[in-house]
């Protein structure tokens, strides 16, 4: 019987180390002679640097060096534009340390390297910087008005990108519609906030002539490529390792100034250098996300069928656009969600402001899109007096309509094309879970009669996951009885060591204990782009499957020769290859690996007796076309994204006196194609939903009109705790993806996408007697009270 590994809730192989305190995060690394760095950051949102005097700081005992822009040698060039886009007509990136201008509070101005972190921080205070303040641009609506102050004077505009996407004939659709409804919808600025901040340790190894960099990054390979190019080193002379990383959620997929500065300091000083971001720094030096202001309208016929959607929005890009316009582009492409929108006009301007730059945070433009679309759908239902579930049903892309083209180019340059799904079944299932009919018919009227404000909310979403360009995997079977699987994708908690081992175990039919997964170390795998966009399981998982299949073929071929049978007559079970129907005629993978390598010197392995046999062929020990190992490297490059989807329902109660909210139920039906490990998938959904709850109620980064962040600490920026996140009920629906060898779709961001939309829907319903409509997120108790007061005025 073949062993099934896919679909099993295999316990995580990464856990014992982490549970016993033996994880290795960047700040845990301690090298002999290591120095410590701290960054002096701008206290102003927008200012000209007149003069920097670091002489006092340099003279402090224990200070080894102070770097300013002029000291950066090859790193004096601008940081690269990582993802260009034709619509991004005015890109702007920063220098690793500000040259003559700072554009947000927190921008790095100088780097101190000292014998201890404490001394380095002392030295920051001894650096004198003269600034000439410039007018700060904070409000993005004002920033696009004529005559507005400019973030980057030389660009002549605050508009970094102006994107227009048109599908069908929206003008006609709107002209002919029975009804048109408009909304202004806002999602505020937020940030990923992993509990581990960023950190880097860099050291030049003079014996191997290698620059080794431990980095809490989601993309070690791209960092390696960038550093090698910048410092004129061969690719193999730079090793970037993402060790254990304490959460990323998007903000660690970037090329940050410190990722240049710390390696550069290590090279110049010839000693290892460590920098660990502190939490306050993280608020002002690590990228943010979310703020968008949408003016959206929907055109429907008399039955609530969508004829067209028009959405024009502003996207806050922050001070620089290193990551291009990925976030608003995803918003634009994903806005139609699971619904057929035959005529669609979407347009955005990405706007500079003197705030921390914006790049993806879990969800990456999708929570915004889902919020807009679901608000519009709810509005249609409410205005037409239709059931909210019914309006969704009427507009879903149907199961027989895949592949379904939205009509726009997605973030990866491929078409926005849904590959599979069953949206009606997904909604039906969640309605059943939450007992929608009974709630609406019996429960809610009874509660309303009691004077309680309890509402039910719905939200559906799709998520383009598993995008290209590609990832690869290397699989090697060793005579020692181990299978080594290496990929370029590092994890930040997503259980790659477990799920990729499951894939390899299933493909090879070996016990999972035999498999060792190596990830996030460029010395082990050097091609690929990183962990983002819910793509690991899809892209790296598929690459592992393909590589394992190749190795399995190699092993079968060798075994067939050894056993003098046809490879087609062989089967594999539990790591043993044998002749079908004659299990005693066979050998293990480990023996096959030994056969592959005609080399003596093996320790007493399971394969040892094979070595003493004369080889059964003439000619060279390693015949042409054969390699001395069972190993293969394969790449998987998806034709386009594979589309996961989900439907959520929640019941919540609002206390109109306090504005406080209590969840009664929160149900999720989720379709990420074939599930590799249901336990891991559910964990991803739980975590995403918790962040969604943060986005719906608590998480908001606030700047004052001078561009000063006013809540840059965990005291003031609230992350949901265990009492704010309700129990989450999950059901899986599996419509396998036809695009990849495993049939999987991504799940990393799923939970974070629909929650603001879901909560808004439920609050509207709970407060229906008061006529409240939620149009912005997050919504804390005081804002909710304000809404209630306004509606009852």
């Amino acid at each position, binding site marked *: 019987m073949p062993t099934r590994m896919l679909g099993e809730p295999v*316990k*995580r192989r*990464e*856990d*014992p180390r*982490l*549970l*016993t*305190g*033996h*994880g*290795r*995060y960047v*700040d*845990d690394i*301690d090298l002999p002679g290591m120095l410590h760095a701290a960054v002096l950051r701008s206290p102003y949102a927008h200012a000209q640097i007149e003069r920097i005097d670091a002489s006092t700081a340099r003279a402090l005992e224990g200070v080894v060096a102070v770097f300013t822009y002029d000291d950066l040698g090859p790193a004096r060039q601008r940081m690269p534009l990582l993802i260009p886009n034709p619509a991004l007509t005015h890109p702007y990136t920063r220098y690793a340390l500000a040259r003559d201008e700072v554009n947000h509070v927190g921008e790095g101005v100088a780097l101190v390297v000292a014998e201890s972190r*404490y001394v380095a921080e002392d030295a920051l205070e001894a650096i004198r910087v003269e600034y000439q303040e410039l007018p700060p641009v904070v409000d993005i609506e004002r920033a696009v008005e004529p005559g507005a102050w400019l973030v980057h004077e030389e660009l002549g505009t605050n508009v970094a990108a102006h994107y227009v996407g048109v599908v069908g004939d929206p003008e006609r659709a709107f002209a002919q519609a029975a009804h048109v409804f408009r909304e202004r919808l806002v999602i505020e600025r937020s940030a*990923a*906030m*992993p*509990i*581990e*901040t960023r950190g880097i340790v860099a050291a030049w190894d003079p014996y191997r002539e290698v620059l080794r960099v431990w980095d809490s990054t989601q993309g070690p390979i791209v960092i390696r490529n960038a550093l090698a190019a910048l410092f004129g080193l061969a690719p193999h002379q730079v090793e970037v390792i993402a060790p*254990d*990383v*304490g*959460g990323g*959620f998007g903000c660690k997929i970037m090329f940050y100034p410190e990722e240049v500065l710390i390696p550069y300091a290590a090279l110049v000083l010839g000693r290892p250098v460590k920098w660990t971001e*502190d*939490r*306050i720094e993280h608020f002002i030096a690590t990228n943010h996300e979310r703020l968008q202001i949408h003016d959206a309208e929907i055109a429907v016929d008399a039955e609530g069928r969508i004829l067209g959607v028009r959405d024009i929005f502003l996207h806050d890009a922050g001070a620089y656009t290193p990551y291009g316009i990925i976030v608003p582009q995803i918003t634009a492409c994903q806005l139609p969600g699971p619904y057929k929108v035959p005529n669609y006009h979407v347009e955005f301007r990405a706007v500079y402001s003197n705030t921390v730059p914006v790049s993806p945070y879990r969800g990456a433009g999708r929570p915004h899109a889902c919020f807009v679309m679901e608000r519009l759908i709810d509005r249609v239902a409410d205005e037409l007096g239709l059931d909210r579930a019914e309006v969704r049903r009427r507009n879903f892309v149907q199961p027989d309509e895949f592949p379904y083209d939205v009509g726009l180019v997605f973030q990866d340059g491929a078409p926005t094309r849904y590959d599979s799904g069953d949206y009606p079944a997904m909604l039906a299932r969640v309605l059943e879970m939450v007992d929608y009919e009974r709630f609406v018919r019996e429960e809610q009227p009874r509660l309303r009669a009691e004077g309680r404000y309890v509402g039910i909310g719905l939200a559906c979403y799709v998520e383009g996951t598993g995008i290209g360009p590609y990832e690869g995997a290397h699989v090697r079977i060793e005579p020692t009885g181990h299978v080594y699987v290496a990929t370029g994708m590092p994890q*930040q*908690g*997503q*259980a790659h060591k477990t799920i990729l081992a499951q894939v390899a175990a299933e493909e090879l039919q070996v016990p999972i204990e035999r498999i060792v997964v190596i990830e996030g170390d460029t010395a082990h795998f050097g091609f690929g782009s990183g962990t983002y966009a819910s793509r690991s399981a899809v892209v790296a998982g598929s690459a592992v499957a393909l590589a394992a299949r190749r190795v399995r073929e190699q092993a079968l071929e060798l075994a067939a020769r050894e056993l003098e049978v046809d490879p087609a007559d062989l089967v594999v079970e539990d790591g043993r290859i044998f002749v079908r129907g004659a299990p005693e005629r066979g050998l293990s993978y480990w023996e096959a690996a030994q056969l592959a390598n005609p080399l003596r010197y093996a320790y007493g392995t399971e394969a040892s007796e094979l070595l003493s046999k004369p080889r059964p062929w003439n000619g060279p020990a390693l015949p042409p076309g054969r390699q001395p190992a069972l190993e293969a490297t394969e790449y998987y490059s998806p034709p386009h994204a594979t589309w996961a989807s989900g439907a959520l329902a929640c019941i919540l109660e609002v206390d109109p006196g306090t504005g406080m909210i209590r969840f009664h139920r929160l149900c999720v039906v989720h379709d990420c194609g074939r599930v590799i490990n249901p*336990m*891991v998938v*559910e*964990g991803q*959904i*739980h*975590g*995403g*939903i*918790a*962040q969604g709850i943060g986005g719906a109620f608590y998480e908001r980064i606030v700047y004052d009109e001078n561009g000063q962040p006013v809540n840059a*600490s*965990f*005291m003031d920026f609230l*992350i949901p*705790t*265990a*009492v704010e*996140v309700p*129990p*989450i009920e999950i059901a899986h629906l599996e419509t396998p993806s036809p695009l990849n060898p495993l049939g999987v779709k991504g799940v990393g961001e799923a*939970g974070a996408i629909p929650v603001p939309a879901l909560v808004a829907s439920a609050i509207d319903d709970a407060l229906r007697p008061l006529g409240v409509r939620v149009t912005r997120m997050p919504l804390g108790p005081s804002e909710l009270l304000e809404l209630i007061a306004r509606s009852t005025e």
Partner: protein
Amino acid sequence: MSAEVGAGSAQRRAIRVTVNGVVYERVVEPRLLLSDFLRHELGLTGTHVGCEHGVCGACTVLVNGEPARSCLMLAVQADGLAIETVESLAPDEERLHPLQQAFWDRHGLQCGFCTPGLLMLLKSFLAENPSPSEEEVREAISGNLCRCTGYQNIVAAALEAARLLREPVAG
């Protein structure tokens, strides 16, 4: 028994701290945080630092049996006290503490960064309240931030650990 040490390092103080049953005598700067002392002086990097301002709970250790945020304490304040960190939880190399086992079984961690703090907090919580309700567990851990798990499996793990601790498996 702390003392000022030497003229050249007038500010440095000698301290004697018991960590995981081992007595350490060190001379430290008064401003050195207990979290930094544990991590960087003693190399016990299982205790993590997520905020350094007392909110996230990642740095939670037990001080004389009581949970404390090691980022809010100075090493000199730990002079004469007994500290327990996550490294002391498992009885030996082979076995896990019931809390660790339950976290593993119930998928109570993802990135693992918040985990040591939660384990130490829960160790003391379950000692005081061996049969907590789900609500009580949620309340108890509400001072520890986890950005990965949504807490559901942490709560499940805590309840499971409580069970395991109440009814230790025979043998």
